[in-house]
């Protein structure tokens, strides 16, 4: 019994250390501000970005599709702080409304990604056995395709639009990131309290929802944060290539392509500002994500791990006896 408890691994220790699981988010926020100045800066940037997206109607001096006659391709000035484009639309307003589009795609896409990852990962990790083996081969096959190829292929079939972008990006990345959730579920499944729950005859759904899912919150928060950044960049990339959100919607990626590229040497402000906004937001999300990962995933924290801990692909963890579930062998060497 004692031996078993010693071999139980980190997840269990963490669960013991945090008796009130509901306060996880608040605790993470407190630690973020206390311990991670750069992460806090990132979080502040993300907050500003969200506020701009929500309050775009009040912040933007002009409408995103409001033509100003006789103000074509004007460089930045007092009236048009970031300049105007080829049909006289205020770039600042378009960048501000672009924040809203990026925010919607980022949040909705990341939600979908997490939901798909959790469903697939939990099923695969919890059921295990042959089901897991087959699921993991499918994920293997899926992950062989660079995401842009997959996304563009599906977008070629579905056609452009914001809804399609969210659906496709969430779907494509959700399947890929189900690995992370699966790994966490397999690790948690080995814990004593799950064994006890089985022993006292808890129904399966109760074990899943009461014991396993709440403990996967840490990887899910990390997944969501990085997901938002990925979605925003992904949307910008495919809109840039012309298969994302069609004009006149002011998508940051879309503003960099098409007409923007046509006039880029004549009016560089048309393409400088949307890209800069994109870079700042992604920077903020990355910083926040890194800090959250440091706080939530002690295995990755700089000084703590031995060399062996972070070696290789860390996703599928071994169980307490040191060997893996059958399906995972291909992943870890």
């Amino acid at each position, binding site marked *: 019994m004692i031996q078993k408890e010693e071999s139980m691994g980190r997840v269990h220790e963490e669960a013991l250390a945090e008796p009130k699981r509901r306060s996880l988010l608040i605790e993470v926020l407190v630690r973020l501000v206390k311990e991670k100045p750069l992460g806090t800066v990132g979080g502040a940037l993300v907050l500003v970005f969200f506020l701009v997206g929500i309050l775009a109607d009040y912040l933007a001096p002009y409408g995103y599709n409001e033509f100003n006659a006789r103000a074509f391709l004007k460089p930045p000035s007092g009236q048009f702080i970031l300049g105007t484009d080829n049909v006289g639309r205020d770039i600042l307003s378009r960048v501000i409304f672009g924040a809203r589009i990026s925010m919607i795609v980022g949040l909705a896409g990341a939600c979908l990604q997490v939901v798909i990852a959790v469903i697939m990962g939990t099923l695969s990790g919890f059921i295990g056995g042959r089901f897991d083996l087959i699921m993991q081969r499918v994920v293997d096959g899926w992950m062989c395709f660079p995401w842009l*190829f997959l996304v563009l292929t599906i977008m070629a079939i579905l056609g452009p639009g914001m809804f399609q972008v969210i659906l496709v990006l969430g779907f494509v990345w959700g399947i890929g990131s189900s690995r992370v959730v699966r790994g966490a579920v397999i690790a948690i499944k080995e814990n004593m309290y799950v064994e006890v729950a089985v022993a006292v005859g808890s129904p399966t759904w109760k074990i899943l929802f009461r014991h396993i899912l709440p403990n996967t919150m840490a990887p899910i928060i990390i997944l969501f944060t990085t997901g938002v950044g990925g979605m925003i960049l992904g949307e910008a990339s495919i809109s840039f290539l012309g298969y994302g959100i069609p004009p006149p919607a002011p998508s940051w990626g879309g503003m960099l392509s098409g007409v923007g590229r046509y006039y880029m040497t004549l009016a560089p402000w048309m393409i400088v500002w949307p890209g800069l906004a994109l870079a700042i937001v992604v920077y903020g999300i990355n910083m926040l994500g890194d800090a959250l990962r440091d706080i939530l995933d002690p295995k990755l924290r700089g000084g703590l791990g031995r060399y062996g801990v972070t070696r290789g692909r860390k996703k599928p963890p071994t169980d307490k006896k040191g060997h893996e579930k059958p399906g995972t062998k291909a992943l870890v*060497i």
Partner: protein
Amino acid sequence: MRAYVIRRLLLLVATLFLVTLIVFLSVRFIPGDVIELMMSEHMMETQRGRQINAEAIKKRLGLDLPLHEQYGRWLGGVIRGDLGISLWTNRPVAGDILERLPISLELGLLGIAVGLLIAVPIGIYSAIRQDTPGDYLARSFAILCIAVPNFWLATMVIVFPSIWWQWTPPMEYIPFADDPTGNLQQFLIPAVVLGMALSGLTMRMTRTMMLEVLRQDYIRTAWSKGLSERTITFRHAVKNALIPVITLVGLQVPVLIGGAVIIEQIFSLPGMGRFFLDAVRDRDYIIISGVNLVIATIVLINNLLIDCTYAYLDPRVKYR
């Protein structure tokens, strides 16, 4: 080791089978109205007045057969190296891909080379001078590399030199055989842009791994033997620190291929990425599935090689 490689090869075959299935199904799920669209586009484009009707297109795609038979026929062709014939240009897809593959490969390899050349020295420096201003600078640079979208960076690289110095990158592809230096010059800037994002990740990984290794006991032993910092860093630490970095770079290959699509488009390099984008624009599903299959196979083989290299380089890894 041998048993491990053989087992991985068997798994590779299984995954490859699933890859073909995914590619196959993605094409078979084309909705009917797309076929009609293709038809109307073809009718407009066909100059010789050759009529193409829906039945002909369906037959061309093999859609008139039952699903398993379609798959069998298609797979049989793929194994013989026949990826089908383009709906648009009527050229065999396999040949077109072979023509463009070297260009993408060159771009990708140069991108990796640039990424490593930037990342590894800075990463090592950042680790051995941890928490100095130089380290902070290097880390900020790494984050900058990751945060700046490559298509924006590429656009900036085209726009500002042309405004300031009236210099534009060549928009005509120069084959390596015709003019090696001109070809390399042409590839240099796209490769740097492509390598930037990779170098950011690699820099951070190098730094983390160096820090891990520098805390090991054998490094302390080396210090206490009175070895110079240079010897410790390069003979003892770097070798071990770089093994996981190789894995990281290998795993970034799919990301790199995706990035190359955009870079090729911006710098007008006629590689796989542009070929694919043109096919997506024309809805040439034969080309789309062909390119997807080739890319996925490359990624799969790449992953296998990475794992084997890793197992070979790090004797502590157990092959199970």
